[in-house]
């Protein structure tokens, strides 16, 4: 039988059978390529499936259950946990705290880093040393920086209040007051984020073509005009990237809270991730914590879609 088809092919290349076999050869090659690619991807895919995708679904699943103290789902409650989220102050407070924290940290991080990047971009001898200092916090962990700031903010021993008194300012109750605790943690977080932000902005600045500034100078533009009309627009894609990264980082803040305040005083620093941690790890409320985690995911997803869909259109790409 094969012999017959083979001889048919040789005589009539346009034959239906020939085309069929030929097509399936292409498909076979495609399939082989696909399998090879899958083999290359499989180590990553397996890890992603086991530790990212399945857990994401299990979080949603857990959020519709009451669990026993070990996290085993016991009774299905549907959307009850979500009703509880909006009926009790725990989640709403955490959500508000997280949003405030984003508002405190993201704009100030970007403004401070922009200043540092402008300084680091000066053409002066020894500027590399300053750049190194400005990017140093990349190497600092959240835990160590929190311990350092815990000292700096200390009401009696810390040096921050002492330095304020030197310039005639009143002592600030920093971490022990409901109104100042979250801003204090924001200061520590901004400091930690400065390194990465400055590095990214500096690199983007160095990517701006020299000719733009030269022609602006010929037109008589001063430093401020150059900054407003060349530097800022040319940095828009870097700003866009940093806004995304900084908002996500602010929403995910945990370590600073755990080391410095444990969510207090009076829940004033009980941000979303800390609340999730506390509900499942200490209170054994896995379902309730999972519902909060789902909300966190939805917020981040919404933000990312919003940012890529709307903000990116307004970004100027060079």
């Amino acid at each position, binding site marked *: 039988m094969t012999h017959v088809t083979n001889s048919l092919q040789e005589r009539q290349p346009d034959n239906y059978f020939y085309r069929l076999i030929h097509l399936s050869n292409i498909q076979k090659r495609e399939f082989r390529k696909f399998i090879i690619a899958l083999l290359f991807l499989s180590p990553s895919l397996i890890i992603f499936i086991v530790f990212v995708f399945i*857990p994401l679904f299990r979080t949603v699943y857990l959020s519709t259950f009451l669990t026993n103290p070990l996290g085993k789902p016991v009774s299905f409650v549907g959307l009850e946990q979500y009703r509880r989220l909006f009926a009790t102050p725990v989640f709403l407070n955490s959500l508000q705290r997280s949003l405030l924290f984003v508002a405190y940290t993201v704009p100030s991080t970007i403004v401070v880093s922009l200043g540092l990047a402008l300084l680091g971009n000066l053409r002066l001898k020894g500027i590399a040393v300053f750049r190194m200092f400005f990017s140093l916090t990349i190497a600092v962990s959240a835990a160590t920086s929190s311990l350092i700031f815990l000292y700096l903010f200390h009401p009696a021993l810390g040096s921050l209040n002492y330095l304020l008194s030197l310039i005639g300012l009143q002592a600030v109750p920093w971490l022990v007051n409901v109104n100042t605790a979250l801003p204090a943690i924001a200061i520590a977080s901004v400091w930690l984020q400065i390194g990465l932000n400055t590095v990214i902005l500096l690199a983007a600045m160095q990517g701006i073509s020299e000719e733009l500034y030269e022609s602006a100078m010929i037109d008589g533009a001063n430093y401020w005009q150059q900054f407003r009309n060349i530097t800022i627009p040319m940095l828009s894609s870097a700003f866009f990237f940093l806004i995304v990264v900084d908002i996500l980082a602010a929403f995910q803040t945990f370590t600073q809270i755990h080391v410095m305040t444990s969510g207090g005083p009076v829940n004033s620093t009980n941000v979303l991730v800390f609340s999730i941690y506390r509900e499942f790890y200490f209170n054994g409320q896995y379902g309730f914590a999972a519902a909060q985690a789902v909300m966190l995911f939805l917020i981040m997803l919404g933000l990312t879609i919003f940012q890529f869909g709307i903000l990116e259109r307004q970004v100027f790409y060079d």
Partner: protein
Amino acid sequence: MSNQLQNTIKKISLYLILVIAAIIVIYPIWTAITISLLDDKQVAQYPPQLYPTHLNLDNFRRALEQAPLLRYLFNSMMQSSLVMIGQLFTACLAAYAFAFIDFKWRNVLFLTFLATLMIPWEATIIPNYLLIKSVKWDNTFQGLALPFIATGFGTFLLRQFFLKIPKELHDAAIMDGCGHLCFLTTIVIPLARPALGTLAVYSFLQTYNQYLWPLLITSDESMRTVQIGIALLQDEERFMFNTVMAGVVFVLLPTFFLFIFSNRQLIRGLTAGAVKG
């Protein structure tokens, strides 16, 4: 002449601003080093001591004696190295497929990889914690490292670099009978050394500085990582700030060295992905 004078004044004032900015940025680190060198009386005095007066290493001795910092450091190094090696391995293979193999569903799978960047780790942490507990991998190195040995970011970073390698090289190698694995190991990896270096340093730093995951799954003191270990130092009342800061400096030292030695490469690699990507 006056123009030159103006220039000099401008330069001096710029340096002045630079120095002030650097002092403010460095101040927390400076404080940690200062406090770690003070004796018990100095650390409790008012006004606070703003600079060290002598090289006093007692606090380091005390921190090392009273908390198993070296053991913590070993645990962190193990976790970070495992994650680093794992990420290099998985990201190299995946980035190769995305850059050099033209296969069906490539875009879909690539988007799947990117999607992992948008799923916050905290949204999946409860099931992951329960999973690791249920297979009794809490307090083990595999429990610390395994969830992190694949990386969407690293795959993206390497793919961007791999794409710059001319396709003709690939075709020529395949013609010569050098298969995919052979091409990857003999041509791509040596060429991509800078990008691999960036990913290695980045993943090491990230893992070494991790907090929430090791906090959840290490309850044995002998399995704690440095970040958790020093944070717990502060909880114990017998430790004064100078001892805690000695611990902080001890924990910061490895990453500072890593950062200083790999500064250029790390920054160039990361910004190439972020700014132009």
